């Protein structure tokens, strides 16, 4: 990903990542890396389309929100309000936000610190159950 699109993506993450309610973990860098890791598995249409969409977000404020500065220069609350407006815009803008939300939320909420704050430990449970099932199957003679 180019440096310019990475800069926009970083600002998008800052705007839409969960905040408050115990979700203030400083993990934006992790979310950025995880989001970019997804890109290489996308079909070519999305690999091309997502960076274009990020540029649309960057230059969009005058068009979509009557704000006269670029997205990356907006203060965080204004940037969040601007992006929230994409949700009900329909068409490509809604789809773009839906996709970005999915990437950011997946990386954010599955971070071990966030899972711990939710009281969810799927991985530890998996270790226990794999072992337990191995014992059960051994007892069955499988």
């Amino acid at each position, binding site marked *: 990903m180019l440096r310019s699109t990475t800069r926009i993506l970083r600002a998008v993450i800052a*705007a839409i990542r969960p905040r408050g309610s115990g*979700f203030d973990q400083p993990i934006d860098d992790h979310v950025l890396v*995880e989001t970019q*890791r997804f890109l290489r*598995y996308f079909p070519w249409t999305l690999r091309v389309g997502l960076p274009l969409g990020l540029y649309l977000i960057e230059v969009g404020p005058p068009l979509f929100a009557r704000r006269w500065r670029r997205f990356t220069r907006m203060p965080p609350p204004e940037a969040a309000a601007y992006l929230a407006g994409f949700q009900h815009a329909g068409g490509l803008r809604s789809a773009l936000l839906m996709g970005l939300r999915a990437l950011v939320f997946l990386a954010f*909420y599955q971070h071990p610190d966030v899972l711990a704050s*939710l009281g969810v430990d799927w991985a530890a449970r998996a270790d226990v159950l794999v072992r337990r099932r191995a*014992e059960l199957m051994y007892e*069955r003679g499988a």
Partner: protein
Amino acid sequence: MNAAPDALVPPEHRVAYPNVTVGETLDGNRDFAADAIVVGTGAGGATAAARLRDAGLDVLMLEEGGLHRTETFVTDPATMIHRLYRDAGTTMIFGRPPIIFAEGKCVGGSTVINGGMSWRAPERVLEHWARDLGIPDAGVRAMEPYFAEAERILHVEPNDEDTYGRNTHLFLAGAERLGWPVARAPRDMRRCMGLNNCALGCPTGAKQAMHVTEVPRALAAGAALVTHARIDRVLFRGRRAVGVRGRFVTDDGRRLGRFRAHAPLVVLAAGARCTPGILKRSRLRARMIGRGLHTHPNAKVVGLFDAPIDPWIGTHQAFHVHHFLEQGVLIGYAAVPPGLLAVALPGVGAENARWMRQYNHMLTAAALIEDRGEGRVVLGPDRQPYMLFDLSREDLETVHRGVALTAELLFAAGARRVLLPFADLPELAGPDELRRIAERPRVADTIELMTVHIMGTTRMATDGSRGAVDPSGAVFDTDGLVVADASVLPSSIGVNPQETIVAMALRNADRWIDRRAARR
């Protein structure tokens, strides 16, 4: 009984995979030859491959994805989505509304990532195929031995009660209060532990997906498997299929060398999106190829409870409500990891955080809709298959009915709020508000749907004007080219299709074997 050894692992962690060639490690161009080529290793492909091998054919399986062994499975969604899902789970069905579609791209196909439900196609559906569509030996009695065999292959059993979590008990309580009978779900598993990781691959090995059942069985019997092999098209001599050609690809889709595989029998089992895509790229012009797409969409409905549920503990979908199947609605429930559930909840930033703080109080249920409308698969300018599907007016009504019933069940179970899949009606504050679903304008665009059950895109029929393949799965106007996946199902079946795909592949494979014997 002696204590188990420390190094004890489940039997599925010790599965042997002989005769496997990893395509992404091959340089240059390659040629292969066999008696039968099977494209795809999901429910249909793996079943057909094993059946053909049992009949003595030299079988070559070609799979676009990689072989991921059970012992490498983890619970992190991002890691497993990269490994197991096509396009990292971003495939869309275009239309009103757009529908998210997820399918497996790995050895075992979507059986590795499904919930393991193993329902037979309902009797009324089978009778429709036999009586109304005239498909011989597709009725209840004729299909019985194939379903029985499918259940043996899949190792179908219900969940043990010790795997039930609070989500299961709430689901049962809601249904009971409403007087709705529940059906205990049969699943392809050996001693499920209730880990709830089915959609990301089962680390315990309990789910009997094709990568631990028919694929290794076929390999042990002498079949061969080439992974990372993406099919471009079928090769013909006149009207006879003589093989396929394609390219090796990496896990993330980068193209490597080319290959050709030659065989007098080509079995396509690449799924209801890619199979018609391959046929269309093979310059087959039959009008019905790609038509008849059914999506069996599901609409998510989330109940919010005062007491914690811990929805990630205990099995999912141990029960379904089939009471409304005649109306085209099946109701189930699932455990969705936080990172995926958050996407279905409203808002960004602080708003989404407020909802997600209550994650352990949420029960995620869904209405699965038996769609009557039909879409199609077309080739895009990049020669890749794209799916087009609009909800019909009747289907739109069924979605509303299904969402209302599911919300009613959640309120009956004690939910204080229910979140809906409508952007313009995101939540209900109590059962008194259920009428708002009925009053909602029937607008499709603002409904959030997803599916893992597409079917019908090269459907079986008695003639080429009504379907793409004949009642044995053979593609019309060709020789030696057959289809063995959900594409061949002649109509939407209204339940999870895995077992029906397996049963139909068994039924059709017997016909191909008989035909081959008769020719000799």
